[in-house]
């Protein structure tokens, strides 16, 4: 029975970013057919499921296609993903196996993000309700919801107009949402509820550097690897935009957290400095 991939415990999201780790001793191979490449731009959700029956066998990559969320139609494609290629390119295009991202020429103009949402955790309940936590880098964040979330983690309150402006001026605003889909009995469309449970944003010059700020996860959902997933997916999204230098400032107690995600402290001896008002 294929098992839906759940949290980082089963498949460390980091493994897809860092080379040298094996997924259940199986290599995942991606066929890049043109068909796949074309369809990828239409993909709105990506699920990665691992067939638990035969470890060492290929993984099944399912993708949900559709140009609009409402007009989704599901297809399961038994594609085999080349692990090393995904690791190397981080799902950016690669000469031989291009699971593609936007080409350099396209990136010379500011193309709005159309990256697919990524499902981090998915749970099916016996009553037919489906709960999933998704990452998105292009869904608009509701400022009121964000304010609630900031208060929940204990941050000082900030002027809403300022928060709105900060979000508008950020290069990328990534969010984790809890999506609850309850099946309606008499064939009516499913009721979908979406709740903001995590956020991170990055400022950037759109070309060379990006700095990640304000990483937060709802305390009720902490401890599940969501923070890791959030930052990891955000880094991937930034890499897809060809940002070569992804930086952040880490409080001493979270330095190890970021080290595990591929960040290096004081790279080449470079020191982070902050301005202090003195006069």
């Amino acid at each position: 029975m294929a098992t839906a991939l759940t949290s980082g415990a089963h498949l460390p999201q980091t493994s897809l970013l860092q080379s040298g780790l094996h997924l259940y001793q199986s290599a995942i191979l991606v066929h890049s057919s043109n068909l796949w490449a074309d369809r990828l731009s239409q993909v709105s959700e990506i699920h990665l499921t691992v067939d638990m029956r035969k470890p060492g066998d290929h993984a099944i990559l399912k993708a949900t296609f559709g140009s609009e969320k409402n007009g989704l139609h599901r297809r399961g494609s038994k594609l085999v993903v080349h692990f090393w290629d995904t690791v190397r390119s981080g799902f950016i295009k690669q000469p031989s196996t291009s699971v593609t991202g936007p080409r350099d020429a396209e990136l010379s103009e500011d193309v709005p993000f159309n990256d697919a949402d990524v499902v981090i955790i998915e749970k099916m309940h016996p009553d037919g309700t489906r709960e999933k936590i998704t990452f998105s880098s292009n869904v608009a964040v509701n400022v009121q919801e964000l304010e609630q979330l900031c208060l929940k983690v204990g941050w000082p309150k900030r002027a809403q107009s300022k928060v709105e402006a900060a979000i508008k001026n950020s290069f990328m605003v990534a969010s984790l949402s809890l999506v609850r889909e309850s099946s309606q009995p008499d064939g009516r469309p499913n009721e979908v509820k979406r709740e903001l449970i995590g956020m991170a944003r990055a400022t950037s010059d759109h070309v060379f550097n990006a700095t990640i700020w304000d990483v937060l996860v709802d305390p009720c959902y902490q401890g599940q690897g969501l923070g890791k997933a959030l930052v990891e997916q955000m880094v991937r999204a930034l890499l897809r935009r060809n940002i070569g230098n992804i930086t952040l400032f880490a409080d001493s107690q979270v330095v190890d957290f970021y080290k595990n995600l591929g960040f290096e402290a004081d790279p080449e001896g470079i020191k982070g400095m902050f301005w202090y008002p003195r006069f």
Partner: protein
Amino acid sequence: MATRVPLSSASPEHQKYAFQHSIEVNLAGLASRRSNLRWTIRSSLAASCFSTPPQGAWKPWLCAPCSPSAASQSTLGVTETEAEAFGVTETGSFSVSDETLLARGFELHNSLQGIDLDHLNDLFVKVGFPRRQKQKLERALQHTSSIRWLQEVKSHKLVAFARATGDDVFNAIIWDVVVDPSYQGLGLGKAIMERLMVDLLSKGITNIGLYAEPNVVGFYKPLGYIADPQGIRAMAYSRKGK
């Protein structure tokens, strides 16, 4: 009363300790508009900055009486008192005034207009930075909210440059601070930095960071920058892996 705030992110603007001071305003002292501005900036600084400076002493400048200082208008529209109002310099004026810069033959620019990207790239190379692809450099500068650069009038040479990116409200990072090696030691770097910082502070941005190579940490310290404040570390994503 000090309220302890749990830390949950990498953002230094959210501190462990968010003090809520009652801000006592000496209304009698807020005679001039300048003083008003000073008070506003300082109170917002208090709300968002580290509550305890690393030195350990909390400066009660919130309640300090405001002392007006002489205003002088420069030809470039930046008043010297703005340096004081934002606490960028101790003396209350820029280290090198606009007049002095002009007298020495340097013209200050604060926008992309008139910049020669080839000259900028040449400057980057002179100080050991990589040369950037011109189209990419232009795009990056278009998405940079604050730019300051100095041009030698006689030779049209680009001699100093600095830029800052951010969300224009809370945070800013200063990048690419460069001074032509032939023109170093004249205070040009300081001149650029002070003006860039006044620009950022005037937007209300109080969280200003930068990444300094080890040999230039000493350049930023007198400008008011502190390395690894309260143990905060600069980190960069590295594809070399674990």
